[in-house]
C-alpha cells in the first residue's frame, strides 16, 4: 500500500513504509549516498505529515524488510507484546509523539510500554521530533542494569574507561587505567578495543584487566571488545570474561557481515552466564551499534540508516545487555557529515534505545575527516547528559591513539557530571571514597601506583 500527502499543491506519493520512513528522515549524508533521502524539503515534510497520520498499528502489518527474508524482522514481530502495546494501540505516530511528551507518559508508563513498541515505531516518531523532544522523553525513561555494580540509576552518569593502546602494550594500558580511575572513569566498564583480534591477545588482555580489578578491588566489570567468537574461545579456555562484546546491526545481512547470528549471540550469553561472575546482577552483554553500518555492508534493503539502527536495538534487547552504545560519529562523514548530523543522530539513537528499554550510552565522537570538532562534542555530550544518557566513553585527552578518532575525555566526564549534578554508580562512588580519589587529593594513591599493579 502507498502513502501520500499534499504540500503546496503538489501531491507527494510514497510507495511503501520503508520509502515513507526514508523520505521523512531529517537530512544526513548516508541516506543521500544510498539514494533514498527526500529529494526536497517539501517532499520531506510531506512524508513527515503522512507519517504523523499513520496508525501505530500499521507497523505490525507492514515490515520494512519482509518477515520471510530477515531474522531481525522475525525477532521484532515474534516478540512483540500486544498487552504492553495496548495503551498506545489507538494512536497515530503524531498522536504518539504528543502522548510521549505529555504527563501521562511517566517513567513507569514508559517502562511498561517498551516491550510493546517495535523499533520502527520508535524510529518513526523520532523523525517528527525536535532535539528538545528527544531529550525530554528520553529523560523520563529509566533503565537499570547490574553486573558488579548498578548502572542507570536516577542522578547517575557512568563512564566506560577506554584504555586502548596501538600495540596492546600492557604498560600503556595500565597507565591509562590509572589515569582514568583517578578522574572518576570506569564505572560502566573498563573496556579495551584490542589492536589485534586474536585469541592470544584477548587472553592476555583479559588477565591484565582482571588482575588490576582484583588487586584494587574495583566494583566494576571488564571487557575486551574482541569478536564474540574470540570471546567464546576465551571462555572455553577458562579466561576471566565479565562481559561479552559484539557489534550488531539491524538486519540479518549486516549481522552476517559482522560474523554473527542471533543463535550465536544466545550461545555466547549462556556461556557467560554459566561463569557466574556478576555479583549484583546478570546483565552480561555489551553491544555497539552505529548508523551507516548496514549501508557500508550493502545490507540495508533500501531502508534509511536510522530505522535500521533502531532495529539493531531489537537485537540488543533480546539479550538483556548491561551496556549498549551507538558509536555515532565513528562511522564516517559519508554517513553523518558534520556536527549537526552527528548531534541529531546521537540524540535519536539515545532516544530510540531508551524507549525500547535499553541501557543506552553514546560514544560522543568524531573522526578527523568529518566536519566536526570538540565544540560539537561538548554540545552533544551536554545534551545527552540532560537527556539522561546512561554512560559515555572516557579516553585519555579525548585522543584514542589506537583507533585514531576523538571521543570524550576523562575530563569531559568530570565536567558533565559536575555541570548536571550526576554521580558515578553507587558501588563505584563508594570505592572512590575508600581509595581517596575524587576529593582534593590529586596524587596517585599508593594503592593505585603502577608498580603495585605489577606493570611498571
Amino acid at each position: 500500500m502507498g502513502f501520500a500527502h499534499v504540500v503546496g499543491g503538489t501531491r507527494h506519493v510514497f510507495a511503501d513504509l520503508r520509502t515513507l520512513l526514508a523520505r521523512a528522515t531529517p537530512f544526513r549524508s548516508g541516506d543521500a549516498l544510498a539514494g533514498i533521502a527526500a529529494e526536497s524539503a517539501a517532499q520531506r515534510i510531506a512524508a513527515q505529515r503522512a507519517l504523523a497520520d499513520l496508525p501505530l498499528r500499521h507497523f505490525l502489518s507492514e515490515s520494512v524488510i519482509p518477515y520471510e527474508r530477515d531474522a531481525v524482522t522475525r525477532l521484532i514481530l515474534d516478540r512483540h507484546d500486544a498487552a504492553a502495546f495496548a495503551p498506545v494501540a489507538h494512536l497515530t505516530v503524531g498522536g504518539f509523539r504528543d502522548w510521549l511528551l505529555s504527563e501521562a507518559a511517566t517513567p513507569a508508563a514508559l517502562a511498561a510500554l517498551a516491550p510493546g513498541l517495535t523499533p520502527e515505531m520508535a524510529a518513526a516518531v523520532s523523525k517528527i521530533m525536535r532535539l528538545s523532544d528527544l531529550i525530554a522523553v528520553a529523560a523520563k525513561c529509566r533503565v537499570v542494569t547490574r553486573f558488579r555494580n548498578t548502572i542507570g540509576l536516577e542522578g547517575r552518569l557512568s563512564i566506560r574507561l577506554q584504555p586502548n593502546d596501538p600495540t596492546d602494550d600492557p604498560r600503556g594500558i595500565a597507565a591509562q587505567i590509572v589515569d582514568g580511575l583517578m578522574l572518576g572513569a570506569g564505572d560502566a566498564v573498563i573496556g579495551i578495543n584490542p589492536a589485534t583480534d586474536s585469541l592470544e591477545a584477548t587472553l592476555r588482555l583479559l588477565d591484565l584487566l582482571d588482575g588490576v580489578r582484583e588487586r584494587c578491588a574495583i566494583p566494576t566489570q571488564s571487557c575486551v571488545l574482541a569478536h564474540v567468537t574470540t570471546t567464546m574461545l576465551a571462555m572455553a579456555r577458562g579466561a576471566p570474561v565479565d562481559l561479552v562484546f559484539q557489534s550488531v546491526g539491524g538486519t540479518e545481512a549486516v549481522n552476517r557481515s559482522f560474523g554473527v547470528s542471533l543463535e550465536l549471540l544466545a550461545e555466547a550469553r549462556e556461556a557467560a552466564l554459566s561463569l557466574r561472575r556478576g555479583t549484583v546482577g546478570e546483565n552480561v552483554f555489551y553491544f555497539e551499534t552505529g548508523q551507516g553500518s548496514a549501508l557500508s555492508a550493502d545490507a540495508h534493503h533500501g531502508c534509511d540508516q536510522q530505522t535500521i539502527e533502531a532495529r539493531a536495538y531489537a537485537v540488543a534487547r533480546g539479550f538483556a545487555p548491561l551496556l549498549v552504545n551507538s558509536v555515532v560519529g565513528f562511522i564516517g562523514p559519508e554517513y553523518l557529515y558534520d556536527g549537526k548530523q552527528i548531534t541529531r543522530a546521537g540524540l535519536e539513537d539515545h532516544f530510540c534505545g531508551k524507549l525500547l528499554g535499553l541501557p543506552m550510552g553514546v560514544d560522543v565522537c568524531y573522526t578527523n575527516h568529518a566536519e566536526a570538532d570538540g565544540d560539537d562534542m561538548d554540545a552533544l555530550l551536554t545534551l545527552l547528559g540532560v537527556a539522561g544518557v546512561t554512560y559515555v566513553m572516557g579516553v585519555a585527552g579525548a585522543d584514542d591513539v589506537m583507533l585514531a578518532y576523538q571521543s570524550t575525555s576523562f575530563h569531559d566526564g568530570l565536567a558533565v557530571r559536575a555541570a548536571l549534578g550526576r554521580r558515578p554508580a553507587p558501588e563505584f562512588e563508594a570505592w572512590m571514597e575508600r581509595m581517596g580519589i575524587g576529593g582534593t587529593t590529586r596524587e596517585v594513591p599508593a594503592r593505585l601506583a603502577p608498580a603495585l599493579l605489577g606493570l611498571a
Partner: protein
Amino acid sequence: MTDAALAAPGWAALRRMTPARVALGRAGNALPTAAHLDIQEAHARARDAVWSALDADALAAAILPMLDPLGLPVLRAASQAPDRRTYLLRPDLGRRLRAEDAAALAAYRRNDAPLVFVVADGLSASGVQAEAPALLAAAVPLLRASGVPLGPVVIAAQGRVALGDAIGAALGAGMVAVLIGERPGLSAPASLGVYLTLDPRPGRTDAERNCLSNIRAGGLAPAAAAATLAWLVREAGRIGATGIALKDMRPTGPALPP
C-alpha cells in the same frame, strides 16, 4: 593540578608508559591551557592533512629518479570524485577511474603481469607526500632483487584503495600495491598505508588485500614496511593469493616510540 603535583613520581611514571595523553593535569574539571591547546593544534594539523591537495609534480619529481633508470614512466590518473568534499561524501566515486584515464593508461598495458604501484592521496595527501618516496626507494631494489617485474607508478588524485583495482586492470598488472594516505589521528596526522592486491580488477573486496599501516615517523619505518611488502609480494606470487590466505603471516605492527 599544579605543576608540582604533576611532577610527582606517580604521574611521571604514567607518562613514560604510553603514547596516550595521560597525566595532563586539571584546571578545575577541564584541561590546563597548554594541554588543551596541544589537542587543538593536533586537530588543526589533522584537519589540514585531510583537506591537503596532492602536489603531483613534486611527488613525480621525487619518484622519477628511481624509475627512469629502469625505463619506467610515472603516470597520472584521477578518480571520478572531482573534489575533496565529493570524495568524502561519495566513497563509490573515489573507487572509480575516470574513463579518459582508463583509456590513457591502456596505452601502457603490458603482457608480463607487472607489479604496479599506485600512489593515492586518500585521507592524507601530506602523509603520502612525506612517506611514499621513501617507501618506494626502499621497495624497488628489494623487488628487483627478487625478480619481480615492475610496471609504471601511477599518481592518483582523490583515490580510495579500490581505485587501484581499476588502474591495475587497465595496465594489465599482476599485482597492485596502493600507497595511500591514512585517516589522520591526533597523534599521527601524516601516515601512509599500503594495500597489496593480486590480479586487480574492479569488484575485488578488502578481504582479498593485505594491508600495512601506520607507516610514518614514530610508527612503522618505510624501510621496514618495504621489507614486509617485498615479502608479501613474493609470498603472494608463490601461493597465488593475497588477503585472508596470507593472514597468518601478518606483518609486524608499529613499534612504540621509546
